[in-house]
């Protein structure tokens, strides 16, 4: 028989930690210094993938807020854990449909195409590094012989209701040559400081096509819709999202730095941030609208693309 004490305490501590971490929001984006122009022709590209199967996400519980304190945190943790279990169980059909699909290759091809002759950053080649998370950045950079290394950390997951496919990406361009290192800003990844020339977070969200979207808004129905016909819809969504992420990055690397991204003039739009597999609502400023898609900039400088 299980003891309830450790479970409750652990989930409470975990909740407190997550709540604490969610409050840590500051400017993340680092823009290229103007002096780097023309010096990034010898840049190696790496697509780093943490997990090669599609992930899940949840809307974090807020039920415990009314109760407050330790009890509230325990309530939230219990609800979150239950939601996570249900999502992981429901996603199996989608994962099976993608069992032989190389998502990492899709993303590396998208970046290789878009950045092969880009005027700002020209990628010599783009290779895939599996099993690699952001804290391993310094290792990736040290193994390269190029003047600079552009690393694309990518995940792919479904929204909590499975209605949307989401690709959150973090791009970091690190200096290797002495000349570029002098222009870089040190940032800590894992236990190591890395000379960062540019970095930003991106996100592309694609819904199920209207024609196949189930009228019954159950997660299992959406999973079945994504997985039908060998997963054609989820493959299309991921492919389109990869190309869109490359397009977002291609545009963003040319944009100058700002002290504050929350004071960008323009219309405010609603978006979601997928962090630690949880979906957090956030406001963002509209950058542009095109073909039913909108690009929005968040307060930390990150760039999202989503349906209008």
């Amino acid at each position, binding site marked *: 028989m*299980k*003891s309830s*004490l*450790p*479970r409750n*305490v*652990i*989930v409470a*501590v*975990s*909740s407190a*930690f*997550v709540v604490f*971490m969610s409050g840590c929001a500051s400017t993340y984006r680092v823009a290229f210094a103007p002096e780097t122009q023309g010096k990034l022709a010898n840049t190696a590209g790496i697509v780093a*993938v*943490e*997990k*090669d*199967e599609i*992930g*899940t*996400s*949840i809307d*974090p519980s807020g039920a415990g807020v009314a109760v407050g304190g330790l009890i509230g945190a325990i309530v939230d*943790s219990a609800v*979150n*854990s239950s*939601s*996570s*279990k249900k*999502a*992981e*169980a429901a996603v*199996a059909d989608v*994962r*099976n449909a993608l*069992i032989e699909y190389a998502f990492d290759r899709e993303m590396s091809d998208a970046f290789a195409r878009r950045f092969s002759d880009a005027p700002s950053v020209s990628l010599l080649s783009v290779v895939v590094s*599996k*099993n*690699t*998370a*952001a*804290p*391993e950045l310094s290792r990736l950079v040290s193994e390269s012989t190029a003047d600079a290394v552009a690393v694309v950390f990518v995940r792919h997951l479904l929204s909590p209701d499975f209605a949307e496919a989401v690709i959150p990406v973090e791009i970091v361009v690190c200096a290797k040559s002495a000349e570029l290192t002098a222009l870089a800003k040190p940032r800590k990844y*894992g*236990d190591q400081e890395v000379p960062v020339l540019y970095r930003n977070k991106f996100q592309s969200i694609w819904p199920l096509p209207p024609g196949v979207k189930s009228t019954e808004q159950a997660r299992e129905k959406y999973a079945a819709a994504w997985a039908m016909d060998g997963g054609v819809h989820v493959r299309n969504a991921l492919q389109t999202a990869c190309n869109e992420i490359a397009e977002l990055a291609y545009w963003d690397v040319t944009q100058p730095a700002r002290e504050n991204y929350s004071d960008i003039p323009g219309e405010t739009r609603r978006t979601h941030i997928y962090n*630690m*597999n*949880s979906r957090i609502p956030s406001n963002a400023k509209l950058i542009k609208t095109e073909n039913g898609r909108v690009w929005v900039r968040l307060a930390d400088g990150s760039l999202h693309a989503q349906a209008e």
Partner: protein
Amino acid sequence: MAACGCGSPTEVSMRKPNNKKHAGVFAWIALVLVCGGCASYDPIKLSLAPPEAKHVGTAFVAARSVAVTVLPYNETSAGSVYRKRVVTSGLDDRVAVELRNMSTADVRINAQITEQENISSEAQTDTAGQRDTRQTVISIAKAYLHEVYQTKSAVVVLKLEREGIPARYFRGQVTGLIWTGSDSEYQNALIKALHKALQEMRPELMKTIETS
């Protein structure tokens, strides 16, 4: 847990972390681990079976034996990571051990871990006058651990290939609350996921072999 003749599976991996006597200790360990996790990414080396298990004998006395080759786990192509890295899984050893214990009235599975280039020579077995010359190959298509908001999820996907039959995949998945975040907790989850995948695969494997 099944055991082969040459070494027993890692005992610590089967220990449950919810012992009442150690409740307070676990709580403090959890506090330290959770807070410690803020700053560092900590790959772990999962060793689920002793290395000598790779070279176990293959003798069986059975009415009929069918050779099944288990391809060595390739972490570069099959593994994946989220917070905990599956560096050296030992999962392929575990698959072979479990398969060797799998039998029906007249079929015993004789599983070996073999390098890919040796499959054709290894996949022919005849212990009672019945020869099965078709290759049956089982490989670990995916094995990873990841977290979904305070919950760990261990996934193992096995691939079953047999000449003349399209490849089939069998998924085992274990999802549960993260207790201490210890290596043994993750090992335990991964082993359970492997067992579920094997259970999923068993009827299909038996059907495939019995109709061959």
